[in-house]
């Protein structure tokens, strides 16, 4: 299988890449989504700009009480980073759940969020973490919340000529967990739930639930979050909250799972993610 012909540039600096992308070229990161699409001729960019050689995009560091992850941090970088594992285990756990080893060795955080596959894993965690996504365009940087970034299937609020530069996640003391029902062949999430919970004095003071795979875009299940906050987080409280996760959702349906089955899975996996998160919070 061969892609349509294209020009290829591998700049060493972010500025060069932004200039080329501003001129209509397409970013290539790990290639784990783009190359299969090009081989199937679902995509035929005329000019690819490989972000893989830009050192300024490949980092994971702690700064001002938050973790900053450069766009080309691979899924393997994230799952194996001692810093991420200790300061934001939810993100490491999510990265480790993506695809397979070879995909994680190449695929990147920036590529995954920019691609915005409705079944991608990261969006659930980024919603639950209330992450920020920093975009770089010709006029400099702009920061968008995960909630505003993910718009629809394969659609984000990235503007023309902009690239994802970094993802920022807060560091705090909450307990968290990511639970997914993987599609058996590819590993993509038929449904994936990231839960993050804070407890004080035996009560849940804050709950955040990010959902992926269920609908066209990842989202936060705010009704379920509210139902859990203020309770003791007992199994019955979790059940009640989990039952609200898929309420009113316009669920996707495909050969792997019908809409009703996806909604059912969302409740089950929300229950699992919430119990694990609450266990880790106390």
């Amino acid at each position, binding site marked *: *299988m061969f892609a349509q012909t294209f020009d290829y540039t591998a700049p060493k600096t972010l500025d060069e890449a932004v200039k080329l992308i501003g001129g209509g070229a397409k970013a290539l990161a790990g290639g784990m989504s783009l190359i299969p699409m090009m081989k199937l001729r679902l995509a035929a960019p005329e000019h690819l700009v490989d972000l893989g050689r830009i050192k300024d995009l490949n980092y994971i560091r702690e700064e001002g009480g938050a973790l900053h992850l450069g766009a080309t941090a691979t899924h393997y970088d994230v799952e194996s980073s001692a810093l991420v594992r200790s300061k934001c285990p939810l993100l490491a756990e999510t990265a480790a759940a993506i695809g397979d080893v*070879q*995909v994680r*060795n190449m695929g990147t955080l920036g590529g995954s969020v920019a691609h915005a596959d409705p079944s991608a894993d990261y969006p659930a965690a980024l919603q639950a973490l209330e992450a920020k996504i920093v975009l770089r365009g010709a006029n400099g940087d702009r920061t968008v919340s995960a909630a505003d970034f993910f718009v629809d299937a394969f659609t984000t609020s990235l503007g023309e000529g902009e690239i994802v530069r970094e993802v920022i996640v807060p560091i705090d003391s909450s307990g968290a967990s990511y639970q997914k029902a993987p599609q058996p062949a590819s590993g993509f999430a038929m449904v994936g739930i990231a839960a993050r919970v804070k407890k004080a004095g035996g009560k849940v003071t804050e709950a955040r639930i990010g959902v992926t795979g269920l609908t066209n875009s990842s989202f936060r299940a705010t009704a379920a979050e509210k139902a859990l906050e203020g309770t003791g987080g007992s199994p019955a409280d979790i059940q009640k909250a989990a039952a609200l996760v898929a309420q009113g959702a316009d669920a996707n349906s495909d050969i792997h799972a019908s809409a009703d089955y996806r909604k059912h899975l969302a409740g089950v996996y929300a229950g699992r993610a919430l119990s694990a998160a609450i266990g880790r919070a106390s």
Partner: protein
Amino acid sequence: MKINLTINKKRYSHDVEPRLLLVHYLRETVGLTGTHTGCETSLCGACTVELDGKAVKSCTMFAVQADGANVTTIEGIASDGKLHRVQEAFWNEHGLQCGFCTPGMIMASKQIIDRNGTPSEAEIRHGLEGNLCRCTGYQHIVNAVKAAAAAGR
């Protein structure tokens, strides 16, 4: 576009079209046919090679992305006429039948034990999720990885 890279410790330089996949470059331009193409859709892992120490699916990568890199294929892991311990273990533990998946399985298995000298059975199976085998039922492959890890200790 001109690319320079090292494959199995030998330097190569070729002019390639940007759309040439790494697997076709290895098999057809360089002539190293040990790396197989199975699905060509990033799922089966038969095309797995090592790129700067990381196992990658060479059917899902353009050769130009490997410019300047160090590539190791199945042909490059034995040394001085002695099989690599993963190869030896696949032989001893009957980790293959038809052998089609084997080059990729061995490269993925090598990644597992390079990163973790004492992998559990679950860790081995997790590490082989990107590789499909139509023959063995996997148990002998898992046994081979266990044996290779033990041989390295």
